[in-house]
């Protein structure tokens, strides 16, 4: 792993020394963000700036520390790399600054759709899009003679055939770990069923309905074809199962397809047959059962203007067009100018073109997400029925929303 990161850093380093972009900064830059490869690449490119130190703290636990790390004066982190779900926490706490003047001064390369504007102010700069979509094993599906599933119902049927033919015992994969991941899978399925999370225009929950029950029942049916430990499997563990050749069909993040096609920890057979397609639908609806995501960076509010400017310049350097090369292009669906879609991007493009729903940027969506993550485990274990589980979620959400001043 370390070797790979080093190789990656060197690769990026070599490319950039050839086309050395001028990047001089005059104040410290400190970045916090998630750890997947695309963000590592952005962080490494930002660190090429000279004149002052650029430090990065890229970790899967970034959401635990970014608000606290930006609340002080001066803020520890001058920039947080976030997604459409996590920008809300930063905005609720008012720790990021509008970027309009910096965009006007230094944002020459940016395309208008990269600017995340809220109430007319640019609050973040997006550099990649992401979505969960189908990943399947070409050889296994060929063996049972079915097309890649377009609906979750087809997925179940295919899983049944794979198990009956004795090819795999638990052919479906999925990041169903209790907590954030499980809640996200519910969000996908619920949106696919045409559900709305809140009563129109309010923070009152409205998930205990037919669509919610149908979504949970579908998740339960899927879980019967999963490794029995599914409630402990996050995206990393699910990817490992895939690489070990234990899984044939799964709904997975576009940003994780690249690593699935590397032979490390996997076999040539799995790598050659890892194929992707757009997200599935469910329950006969048109809307794909997935959510659209963007990842972008912000600049902290509680820092000096010099630091903000340096941060902006360094982060712009992190997403400059010539940071894209053979190594970095397949890592994500980049929104950067000059990006040529690679085969790894098909799934996300398909999700975007079929009017998938972006993950809601609501101030109280995070509370709903964590209530779902805490309360759905009981249902998935068969300890209670779907309606009770959804009522529990609504009650847990209501308690937290009242405390937070939303209700």
């Amino acid at each position, binding site marked *: 792993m370390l070797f790979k990161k080093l190789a990656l850093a060197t690769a990026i380093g070599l490319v950039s020394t050839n086309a050395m972009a001028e990047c001089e900064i005059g104040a410290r830059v400190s970045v916090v963000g998630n750890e997947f490869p695309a963000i590592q690449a952005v962080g490494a490119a930002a660190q090429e700036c000279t004149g002052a130190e650029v430090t990065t703290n890229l970790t899967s636990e970034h959401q635990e520390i970014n608000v606290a790390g930006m609340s002080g004066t001066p803020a520890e982190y001058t920039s947080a790399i976030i997604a459409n779900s*996590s920008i809300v926490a930063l*905005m609720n706490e008012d720790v990021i600054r509008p970027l309009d003047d910096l965009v006007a001064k230094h944002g020459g390369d940016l395309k208008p759709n990269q600017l995340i504007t809220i109430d007319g102010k640019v609050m973040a700069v*997006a550099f990649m899009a992401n979505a969960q979509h189908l990943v399947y094993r070409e050889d296994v599906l060929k063996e049972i003679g079915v097309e890649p599933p377009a609906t979750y119902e087809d997925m179940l049927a295919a899983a049944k055939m794979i198990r009956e033919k004795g090819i795999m015992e638990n052919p479906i994969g999925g990041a169903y770990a209790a907590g954030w991941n499980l809640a996200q899978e519910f969000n996908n399925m619920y949106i696919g069923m045409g559900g709305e999370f809140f009563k129109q225009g309010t923070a009152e929950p409205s998930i205990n309905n037919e669509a919610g029950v149908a979504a949970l029942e579908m998740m339960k049916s899927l879980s019967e074809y999963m490794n029995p430990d599914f409630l402990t499997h996050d995206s990393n563990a699910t990817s490992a199962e895939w690489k070990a050749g234990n899984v044939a069909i799964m709904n997975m993040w576009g940003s994780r397809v690249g690593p699935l096609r590397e032979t490390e920890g996997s076999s040539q057979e799995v790598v050659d047959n890892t194929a992707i397609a757009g997200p599935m639908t469910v329950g006969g609806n048109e809307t794909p059962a997935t959510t659209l995501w963007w990842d972008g960076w912000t600049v902290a509010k509680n820092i000096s203007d010099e630091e903000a400017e340096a941060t902006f310049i360094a982060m712009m350097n992190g997403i400059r067009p010539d940071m894209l090369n053979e190594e970095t292009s397949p890592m994500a669906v980049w929104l950067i100018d000059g990006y040529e879609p690679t085969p790894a991007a098909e799934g996300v493009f398909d999700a975007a073109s079929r009017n998938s729903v972006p993950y809601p*940027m609501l*101030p109280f969506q995070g509370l709903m997400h*964590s209530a779902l993550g805490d309360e759905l485990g009981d249902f998935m*274990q068969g300890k209670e029925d779907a309606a009770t589980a959804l009522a529990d979620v609504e009650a847990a959400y209501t*308690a937290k929303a009242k*405390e937070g*001043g939303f209700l």
Partner: protein
Amino acid sequence: MKHKTFFWFILPTALAMLLFIALPIVSVVIQSIFTPHEQVLKVVESCDPFGCKETTSVDQEATQKLRDAKPLGQFAGLAIYRDRGHLAVDEVKAAWQTREGLKDFFKTINNLPFYRAMGFTLTFTFVVTPLLIVFGFVIALAVNSLHRHLKGLAIFFSLLPMIVTPLIGSLILFWMVDSRGIVGTALQWLFSDPNLSLKASTGYTWIMLIVYGVWHAAPFAFVVFYAGLQTLPQDTLESSMIDGASRWQQIRYVVIPHLMPLVTFVALMQLMDNFRVFEPIVGFNAQAHATSLSWIIFNDLGGETRALSSAATTSVLTIMGVAILLSPVLIRTWHDFKVKH
């Protein structure tokens, strides 16, 4: 000791305790009776790579005005203590009124986060603490009777579980008991059940966590008891041998009474430690099966939720729990003290 000397002697300790123990507790209590201000929401247009649409957002200026006027937030009294996430007074009342027998009542109660966490925390505390004392004692006796050349090595290996960072230790075990790990596969083979999974069942997960708890804490008991064994009165021991006491009788009537104050000490420390059980739940990814009070606090503080009042309330309840748990031991110690003086 003169009062004045005593005062100057105790002053640094007292100051440190005030600063690092009393003040944080006061702060937590205050935070638990205040909640954030009502959020002023407004509908704004937001644009992202996928298009523009109307979304709800927090009106920062208006909310900031509220915050500046009253920095502590809204006074909520005991509202947070009574809500569903904590003592759930209304829910418990309702469950009692609509119960169909005690079993049904406890099932409903177990569905409430605080009581569920309490259920696991107490089970863990009261199973792990006695077991680790017994194991620690047995290991100490065994090591003490080894040849002196072997003792050093044996002590080192017995201490290893305590040296390993709890999170790392639990992660290692987590992968070993995975259905594809060495322990998991061995169990499947042993019980000839290919679908056996320790992580998928609540009962097995609890057992796994308890085994981990004993494994991790037994060395602490061992090291304390081993030190105690070095001060064993040899005269008493020899005279009991002359009286014809068997090895078991020597342990029962000489060794155990001698170590009794240490047992109280270990029990006190471990009751407190085990009540705060946290790392194994995170390490074992066990939140679907087992939660603890500390885990609830962590969960409230993390990520996008940041429910500070809720976390503060759970902290206060944890402190109360520790106080109740320790009271019998403390009362006993006080009695012993009074008898001696």
